[in-house]
Structures are given as C-alpha cells and as structure tokens.
C-alpha cells in the first residue's frame, strides 16, 4: 500500500516539479547493436517509467555532438576510443555524463573473410592466402588484395573517417611498414565499409580491412581477425604496435538528464551487457530477417534474469506486463500498420543483384576497366595542364561563350578553389564529372531516340527514368558498390545511372517535338530514316537535347559529391570528412569550391543550349 502510493506520488511530484516528463531522445548511430539497445532501453523507459522517447539517426560522431548539445539525450553505445576527440571534451566540459559501461570485451582490427585463408569447397573457392595469420603476413599477399585504383599495391579498407581506429590504423600502417605494399583506403562511411565486405563476400573475392565486433557482419559472415602483438600499453603508445584493446562501450547521457529524468539515470547506471550477449542478439536478428521487435522481445524473454536486475521489481513487472500482453507493444494496433504483414520487395532486388554479380563478374570487371581507363585518361590530361593555363582556358571559355565579365568571374572562382588548397580535388571531381557526362550522353541519346520512335519503349522507360531521378541519390550507390566495390569506378557508375535519365528524357522530348510535317517533308523527298534523324530530327531537337545535357551535367556534379561516401576522391570527400568532424571551416571551403565549379559548368553548358535555340 505504502509502496504503491509512493510510486504514484513520485510520479505526481515529478510532474508538478518539472511540468511534463520530457521526451527522451536516443541517438542511433546506424548499426544494429545500438538499435537493439535503444529499443530495449526505450521499452523499459516508456513502459516502466512513463517517459516518451524518440530516436535520431546520425553517424557516431554526430550522435555524440548531438549529445553534447542536448539534441540527443542518451547514447547507448558510445565507442569511446573511436570518437575520442568529440567524446572526451564533452566529458571534460561536463556536457555529457558517462553512466555505465555497456560492455568492453569486444574486438576490432583487420579482418579477412575466412575463405581467403582456408578456401571454401562448397562455393569452389581455393585458398588465396593460406599462410595468412597475422597482420605481418600481409605484404606476402599484396597481389591478392590488389587495389583497382592503384594495381601496384594492395588495398586495406580502413576505418570510417574520424573514427579513432582510423588514426590507429594509419599509424599502424607506418609502424609495420605496410604503406609500401598497401594503399590505405578510406571507405567514406561505415555503411559503405559494410557494403564492400558484403560485395566481396558474395563474389568470393579477397578482402582485407578494418572491422569490429559485435556486428551482424561478424555474426553472418565467417570472418577471421588477423593476429597482432598482444595488447601492451607501451607498444600501444608507440605507434599502436599491438592489437586493439577492448574498447569501452559506454552509456552516456546529456548532463540535463540528471535533472530532468533522475529515475532513468538510475536505471541506465545499472545497464550492462557483454559482447557475447550482443553477438547472440545480432545473430538472432540476422536469422529473423532483421526484425528488431522480435529480437528485443526475445531478449526480454531470454535474459529476464539480467535485465530485471537493472530496475526495481515494480518497474520490471510493468515492463513484463506490457511485453507479454497481446495488446501491448507487440500487439495489433490500428494506429500502426500491422507488423506481421510484410512485403519484402527489397529481398528480390538483392537476390537479382547478387545473381548478377555472380554470373556477370567478367562483364563488370571489363566495364570497370573501361570506366577506369576513361577517368584516368581524362584526369591525366587535366593534370598535365598547368594551373595558370587551366584558369586562362576557363577565362577564354567564359569570354567566348558568354562575355568577358563572366570569363573574369570564372577565372577568379577557379583561382579561389586553388587558393583554398583544393585544386587537385577539383581536378579529380571534374574528371569524374566529365567521364560521367560523356558516358551518359553516349548511352542517353540513342536510348532517347529509340524511346521517341516507339511508344511502347517510352511507356516502359518512363517509370524507370522517374525512378532513377526521384530515388534518393544515395540509393544508387548501393548497386554501384556491389558491382564495383568502393572507389572511383562505382562513383562514376552511380553518377551515370543518376545523370543519364535527364539526357534520355530530353532527347526523347526533343525528337517528339519535331513537327510531324517536317518529318513527313523529309521522308517525302526520299530520305532514309538515318537521313531524317541526322539531317532533321537531331538538329531540330538540339536545343532541347542541350538543355538535357545541362541537367545531366548538374546531376553528375551533385552525384559526384554524394559518391564520396563510397570512397570517390575529390571535393566530395572533403565535404564528407567535414560533416563527420562537424568542421565548419573545412565544410565551407570544400562546399564553396563545389558551388564555384557547379556555377561554371552550369553557365557554360546552359549557354551552349541557348545558342542552339537561336536556329
């Protein structure tokens, strides 16, 4: 009686004291184990403590940044070492408070798929590096892990930029003298790192790079951690010449939580799991099509002894009640779409893509070689032009195409890009844009012509084009990565998919707009179809086609920035790093350079399109 009353009055007093209970925001840094922990904690907090909760997604440094600023209240998995440069200042300044260590018995380091060492008789894969046991064996096998962008070296997939492990690995490469045989490859983000593993694994290709557990990748795929010197503090402090220590994965909250939700703070202080539990949860989730709710329910059943220790008996009962009852968290609700009614469209696309990669490997390799050849060709041409000649050429182009004022402005813009120290990045971006646009035109115009001649083809193509253009451009990165891994080639490929659409669309439109009588006139004088196309239709459609090419160029430009997420170099990479570091200055420098480049390209191509309009 006393106890019940107590709970009631507590709730009331906290209400009257603070007004309404605040909504607690969790940070979702994007991997599965943090999602599981978030869900577990959210159910306990909502059902047991009666707070509302929410989740914000962002990369892990951004989550910590949000935690410090109070946009996010709780981080259930803070990989302290990896995000030390945002996390530690937060602790020091008292902006965030570390409540407990979720688990700290995890592993990280360089992994390879086990078939690389042992082969896989089922899939017909021969061992590629049979004696590869430790990191120090890697130089023997640099040929196996050949870097497509630099075939004289091997490629080690690094940690996502701005993770602490990124710095560790870069230093370790030097310490172990791996740099002469290997290129340290920046994967852009943890998501694309995942994809590079999945893609390599599906194709049975060699792969070596940074990874960690607990993760579903380690749960799903047979991966082997390469051995390193046993952890030793002294060696670690001298060039990281030993294995990674277990990282403290902590639960951290914004300082205000201590005031606004002291009961939740108490609960989180007790929250503790192990790597083993995490791996089991991730494996369970992977086996159940990534069903988070099911996994969490499984946790509440399976680990009841564990979690009931975190909270008082009363709270535990409330949580149990809700998770057990049909009408509770997992039951049917009319407000939410029924969860057990699942259409899994993505699975088929995934199957198709993996079938394609398995059966057309040679084709994709050939394609990759061609794209690579064009990009490096264009790049080497651009690189040989001295910077002042390049600026002069831009000036002349602006002057010729528009007027001398524009020429001067463009030249100044180019000069500024150089001044910001981004000249090489700009050249790289430009070479990818040019390649992407060239290939888009080569593909797009014939398809557009075909489409304009045939209503059925048009009806077939239109939804595809709509899809390609409205689908978030990030999505294009996924097949590009799976077909071509990470690097320049998939970046160009994704660019082509995205930017060909306007070229096709405008070619189709332009030719369809040619007056019927004009075509009839051409035919009535005995022209062949080819003559009608080249002498009448294409010249007539040219203003429209040029407008399409302008859009294609702009699309390529925007895609090239996004594709830095899958390891394309250039201006986009700097933007990405700036985002990860929330580095305003760097973000502005690279951002404004992209704007300059985009303006110059846009104005010049637009001008070409307008000139054709005069006829």
């Amino acid at each position, binding site marked *: 009686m006393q106890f019940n009353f107590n709970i009631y009055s507590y709730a009331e007093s906290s209400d009257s004291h603070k007004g309404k209970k605040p909504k607690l925001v969790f940070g979702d840094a994007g991997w599965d184990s943090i999602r599981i922990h978030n869900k577990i904690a959210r159910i306990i907090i909502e059902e047991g403590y009666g707070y509302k909760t929410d989740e914000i997604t962002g990369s892990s440094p951004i989550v910590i940044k949000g935690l410090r600023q109070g946009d996010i209240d709780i981080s259930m998995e803070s990989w302290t070492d990896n995000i030390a440069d945002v996390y530690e200042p937060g602790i020091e300044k008292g902006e965030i408070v570390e409540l407990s260590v979720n688990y700290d018995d995890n592993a990280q380091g360089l992994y390879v798929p086990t078939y690389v060492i042992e082969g896989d008789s089922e899939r017909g894969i021969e061992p590629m590096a049979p004696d590869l046991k430790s990191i120090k064996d890697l130089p023997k096998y640099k040929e196996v892990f050949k870097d497509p962008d630099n075939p004289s070296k091997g490629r080690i997939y690094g940690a996502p930029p701005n993770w602490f492990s990124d710095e560790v690995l870069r230093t370790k490469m030097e310490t172990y003298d791996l740099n002469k045989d290997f290129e340290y490859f920046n994967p852009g983000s943890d998501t694309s790192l995942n994809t590079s593993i999945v893609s390599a694994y599906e194709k049975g290709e060699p792969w070596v790079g940074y990874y960690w557990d607990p993760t579903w990748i380690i749960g799903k795929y047979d991966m082997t951690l390469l051995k390193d010197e046993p952890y030793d503090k002294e060696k670690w402090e001298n060039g990281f010449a030993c294995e990674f220590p277990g990282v403290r994965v902590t639960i951290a909250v914004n300082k205000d939580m201590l005031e606004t939700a002291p009961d939740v703070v108490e609960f989180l202080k007790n929250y503790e799991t192990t790597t083993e539990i995490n791996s089991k949860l991730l494996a369970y989730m992977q086996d159940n099509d990534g069903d988070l709710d099911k996994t969490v329910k499984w946790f509440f059943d399976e680990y009841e002894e564990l979690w009931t220790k975190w909270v008082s008996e009363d709270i535990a009962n409330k949580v149990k009640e809700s998770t057990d009852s049909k009408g509770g968290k997992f039951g049917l609700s009319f407000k939410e779409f029924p969860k057990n009614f699942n259409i899994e469209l993505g699975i088929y696309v995934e199957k198709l893509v993996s079938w394609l990669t398995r059966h057309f490997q040679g084709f994709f390799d050939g394609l990759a070689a061609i794209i690579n050849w064009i990009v490096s060709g264009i790049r080497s041409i651009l690189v040989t032009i001295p910077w002042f000649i390049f600026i002069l050429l831009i000036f002349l182009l602006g002057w010729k195409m528009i007027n001398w004022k524009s020429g001067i402005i463009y030249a100044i813009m180019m000069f500024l890009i150089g001044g910001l120290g981004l000249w090489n990045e700009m050249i790289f971006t430009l070479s990818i844009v040019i390649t992407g646009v060239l290939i888009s035109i080569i593909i797009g115009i014939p398809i557009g012509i075909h489409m304009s001649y045939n209503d059925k083809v048009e009806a077939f193509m239109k939804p595809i084009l709509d899809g390609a253009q409205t689908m978030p451009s990030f999505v294009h990165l996924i097949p590009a990565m799976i077909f071509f891994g990470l690097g320049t080639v998939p970046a160009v490929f994704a660019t082509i998919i995205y930017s060909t659409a306007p070229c096709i669309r405008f070619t189709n439109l332009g030719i369809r707009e040619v*007056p019927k*009588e*004009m075509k*009839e*006139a*051409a*035919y*009535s*004088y*005995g*022209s*062949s179809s080819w*003559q009608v196309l080249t*002498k*009448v239709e294409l*010249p*007539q459609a*040219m203003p429209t086609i040029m407008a399409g090419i302008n859009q294609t160029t702009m699309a390529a430009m925007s895609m090239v920035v996004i594709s830095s997420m899958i390891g394309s170099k250039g201006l986009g990479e700097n933007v990405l790093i700036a985002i990860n570091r929330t580095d305003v200055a760097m973000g502005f420098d690279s951002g404004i350079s992209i704007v300059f480049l985009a303006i110059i390209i846009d104005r010049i191509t637009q001008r070409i399109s307008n000139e054709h309009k005069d*006829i």
Partner: protein
Amino acid sequence: MTEKIIVENLVKTFGSRPKLALEGLKKGWNKKEILKKTGQTIGVNKVSFSVDEGEIFVIIGLSGSGKSTIIRCLNLLNKPTSGNVIVDGENIVNYDKNSLREFRQEKMAMVFQQFGLFTHMTVLENVAYGLEIKKVDKEKREKIAIDAIEEVGLKGWEHKMPNELSGGMQQRVGLARALANDPDILLMDEPFSALDPLIRRDMQIELLDLQSRLKKTIVFITHDINEAFKLGDRVAVMRDGSIVQMGTPEEILNNPSDEYIEDFVKDIDRTKVVRAKDIMKRPNAIVSLNAGVRVAIKEMQVNDISSVFVVDKNRKIQGIVTIDDCIESVKNNKSSLKEILKQDYYTTKEDVYIEDLIDKGVKTKYPIVVVDNEERVLGIIVRTSILTGLLTTNGD
C-alpha cells in the same frame, strides 16, 4: 490523255488490328459501326480514281473526311491497308524501302499545309534538300535551287532562315523545294489554307501560271470549295472516307449528286466558277467582211438584233456594225462594211470567269465576243446572260 495515277479500291484504317476493320468493310458496315464494333478507324474507304497526266486533280472535303490520308497514300507516307496505287503503270504499294526511296526522289514532291520547312536550314538549303538526298553535288544542286527560288519570286532571299519569311513566302519556299526536284507529280496538301485570303488568291493565280508552263500532274487537297473549283480540272468531293462525287467543277455545280454536295456547293461564289465558255451563245449572226452592208442588214433582220460582228474569212474578228450605220450607208449608196466598222466592243477568252467579265458587261454597248488565241470568234455573251449566268449556266 494518259492516266498518270490510278488508285484502285484504296482502304486505309487506323488502329492496331486492320484485319478486323477490313472484315467489317466486307460485311458492309459503315465507318461508325466499325469504330464501335472493332475499335478501328476507317480513314479511307474503298476509294478509286485516276489522275490524268498534266491535270490538276482536286480532292475536297471537310476535316476528317480522309483527304489528307489519301494524298499520303500516294507517296506511302501512309501505307494503304489494302488496294492499289499505280503510278506510271507500276503498283507502288509493295515497293521495298529502296524502291520507295527512289520513287519519292524521282517521281513526286509534296507541299504541306504548314509548309514543312526545315527551320534549322536556310531557304537555299531547304530548296536543295531533295537534291541533297539524291546526292546531287553541292554546286549543281545550289544552282538548280537558286533557279527554283527565282521561279517562285524569292530571288535574294536564299540565305534567310525560314522563320524570317512571311507565311506566303514560306509556302513559296515549299513550292520551290518541290519544283527543284523536277518531279512529274506534285502533291499539295492544303498548301494555301494557312495563308490569308489575299495572299491565297495570288498564290492560286501563280500556281495556275506555273502549271500552264510546267504541265505537272498535280493532286491538290483543299477544304475550300472556291479554291477547288478555281484550280481543279476535275474535283473529287470526299465524305467519311469515300468519294461522293467526281467530275469537272461545272458538272458538280450543275448536277450535285446528293444533298450533301448541294449543301457543299451552296456557298460557292458562282462568278468564280462559271466561265465565259459556259454562258456564251453560238454566234449565229455574223457577217463576213466582204459581204457588204445589205447582207449585214438582212442578218440583223433575221436574228432580230441591232448590231452584228464582222469577221474575215478565217473567222477572225474585225469589228462590229450597227443597224443605224448600215441603213445610213445604203442611203448614201455605199456597200462596204469596212468604213462603218466600230471597234468599241470587248473581247474575252473562253476560260475567263464571270467574275472578271462583270466590269466589261457593265460598260459595253454590245455583246462581249469570246475569241480564241487567234482572235477567231467562238461565241458571244449578251449582257443579260452575265447576270443570269450567276444563277444557272448554259442558259440555252
């Protein structure tokens, strides 16, 4: 005259299943029934006609009557669903790609309603287009093109773009483009419909003028009955994909085959259709120059008229004498007609439209003489018949 183009049982349907439409036609369904039952549209329904060499054959009909479809069947811009199109004795319907291209390059040229000019080419390039396709070398084709441009009165405009020209000038370019190819047959699909009435009139006259020199075989499409009757040696009237009447303008005007045609020709301005030859009388009263005054008086007495035309022995018109002058001569014992011949009469050619005679009819004291090119008398037109000719023709 030889038949240049023969069209036999031409059918053109639109829709994905032409067989259904053809079966429907066999069963005797009409256009509406076929559309309702099969979803197919009948563009041209079993049309047969022939065009003589050197004539202007006009096809007239309201929009949707199938006239533009027919003309496009003649050069296979529309492929006939069934039937034959025979040009110079060859059935072109089954031509393969190459024969068709050659046929289009050599035999026919087409002029379009909206001109169909290539707006990205100069006037010269437009006119030379057909020759370019024929692979005539540049120097030669430009020379021919320049001549053709001059022929249509556009000298000096060779290097302009079509958009810089007025509508009438643009259609001249279209005409020059067709002429540059020197085809036997000109297909003209409502060539003057997009022009304003004054310019249209000029173009019509110019076309007739060109035709009198070039003697092409012309198939001309229009929806303007006045234009059809003015230009056409023969006219075919179309309705719902079929030809409902075919004949010379006069035949159609005088004997409309049904109410539809009657309605059609109701609005016609007869002064623009009826010609001198349609209302002239045979010259019963006519005297020879050598005949003398008494014969002339006698002639006038018999025919109950007060003046008579005088011709030489080749029936060439010499003048007119009046009854008053003849009687005066008799009193003065003079018998020669020569001295009393008057020249204040009007002559006209037999092809002149009444429209152009009204003015003379008002001014003249005597009938108007219809003469041929050698000034020989073919007939006379009395003033009253000009006015009555507006109502009916061939009053006798």
